């Protein structure tokens, strides 16, 4: 996307243009642009705006992760007839801040026989994809960092990076538990990325586009004025498969083989402490939020919702997206506190013998229905 000259404010498809539109609305954009243009450095302004959007995204992810850790503990406590964190801040809301301060203050221990370089590298490899997944995620109308034409493919490709980090961490720690957990996690991730992608392809067949914005736009409107045109109603089987596969991909109970406490201490990050442990923690919850957001984008209508008069659609769409995503996050936490962990052989059996055949079946049926003209 190349913009030359003054901004006219016609189109507004991503956060970059949204910022420019806001600046134009305030009436300062032309002045700023003029200042930069007089030095012949318009690209610096573009870079600054892009960096601002990225900083906002980063801050949003950090705050969300902090809130999610609090929410996880609160939901677990409510299920178990407890209060959960109550002391720090109102209802314990500042507890994640204290945890973060504690983790930063911890000693950063590297095991004596560990592969130091790989050991230090692995947390970053886990953290960076967790942030990168958010780039093509539409938080609301025009609230998207970049509307990639291959958005869904990008998301699946980026989340398929996480096994590398896990395997590096497990191997470099030089510990039998981390290695076992890493092996399990990689087997799990690989076998569940397939149904994840196959069910997403069923949706792509309906929309004819991999762009997340196109997928969300295809779900606007209603049938008979009541039922929203969400793909969950067109693809119920795909939705259930995607939900199960994404929970497995996140590595949460009942599929938390990467960190099964009762068997493998803490899984592949047993040897990590301090800031590196915090990075894994951050990546885990950022991933949870991202996957919930993707689920909402693909099956639950994204930021679509009833338009309220008087409120800008940017704000209402953001609220709808956040509400739906937190509903999915709550479901994941609720499920975590309800069901026990399954066995590793059951996990692989479900993945290869049930999920993938069902996903393929769903794909075939969807293809037939689209060709016959029943759907869409």
């Amino acid at each position, binding site marked *: 996307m190349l913009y030359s000259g003054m901004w006219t404010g016609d189109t507004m498809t991503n956060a970059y243009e949204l910022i420019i539109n806001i600046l134009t609305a305030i009436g300062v954009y032309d002045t700023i642009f003029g200042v930069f243009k007089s030095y012949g450095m318009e690209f610096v302004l573009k870079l600054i705006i892009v960096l601002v959007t990225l900083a906002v995204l980063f801050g949003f992810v950090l705050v969300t992760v902090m809130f999610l850790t609090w929410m996880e503990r609160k939901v677990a406590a*409510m*299920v178990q*007839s*407890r*209060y959960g964190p109550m002391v720090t801040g109102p209802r314990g809301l500042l507890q994640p801040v204290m945890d973060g301060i504690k983790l930063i203050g911890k000693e950063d221990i590297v095991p004596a026989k560990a592969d130091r370089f790989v050991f230090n590298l692995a947390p970053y490899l886990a953290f960076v994809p967790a942030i990168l997944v958010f780039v093509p995620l539409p938080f609301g109308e025009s609230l998207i960092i970049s509307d990639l034409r291959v958005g869904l493919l990008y998301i699946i490709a980026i989340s398929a990076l996480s096994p590398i980090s896990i395997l590096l961490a497990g191997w470099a720690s030089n510990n039998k538990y981390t290695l076992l957990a890493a092996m399990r996690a990689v087997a799990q991730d690989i076998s569940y990325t397939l149904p994840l992608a196959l069910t997403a392809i069923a949706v792509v067949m309906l929309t004819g586009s991999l762009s997340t914005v196109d997928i969300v736009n295809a779900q606007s409107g209603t049938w008979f004025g009541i039922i929203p045109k969400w793909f969950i109603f067109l693809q119920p089987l795909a939705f259930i498969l995607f939900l199960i596969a994404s929970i497995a991909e996140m590595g949460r109970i009942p599929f938390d083989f990467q960190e099964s406490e009762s068997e493998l201490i803490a899984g592949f990050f047993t040897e990590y402490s301090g800031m590196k442990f915090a990075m894994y923690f951050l990546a885990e919850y950022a991933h949870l939020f991202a996957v919930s957001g993707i689920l909402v984008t693909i099956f639950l209508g994204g930021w679509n919702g009833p338009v309220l008069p008087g409120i800008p659609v940017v704000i209402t769409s953001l609220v709808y997206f956040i509400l739906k995503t937190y509903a999915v996050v709550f479901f994941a936490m*609720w*499920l975590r*506190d*309800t*069901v026990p962990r399954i066995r590793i052989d059951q996990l692989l059996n479900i993945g290869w013998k049930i999920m993938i055949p069902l996903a393929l079946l769903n794909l075939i049926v969807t293809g037939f229905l689209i060709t016959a003209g029943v759907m869409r």
Partner: protein
Amino acid sequence: MTWMTRNWTMSGIIKGLTVTLKHVLHIGDRPTVTVQYPYERMKVAPRFRGLHAVDEDACIGCGICDTNCPNGSIRIVKHGTRWYPQVNIGMCMFCGYCVDVCPMNAMKMTGNYELADYTRESLVYGPDRLLFKKEVKQ
């Protein structure tokens, strides 16, 4: 043909989810049972065996509690002009024998259970910390 006998509706998970949701929403008799300890305390039972207390007027310093103490945590020491028991809480197992054998019913146990301390010496409760004066009924 195992696929026919499989539980495809996942009814067990749905049932479990219903139960946990009832706990989250406090449906039925499912209250939050945690006690926020430092801010609120549970009520102890009336016969709870906590820290000892010795009636200043009733105790005759006979030493029967001393001889009956299984852990030997009681000693009779001089306090002012009279003799009173001194209890080492660090050795005491709160069996309550001393209370049972006291001929004058001078010894009793209170509901005080917050007895953690910084030194072993401060766990030895002398008569100055154990004695209490019974209010005389008119």
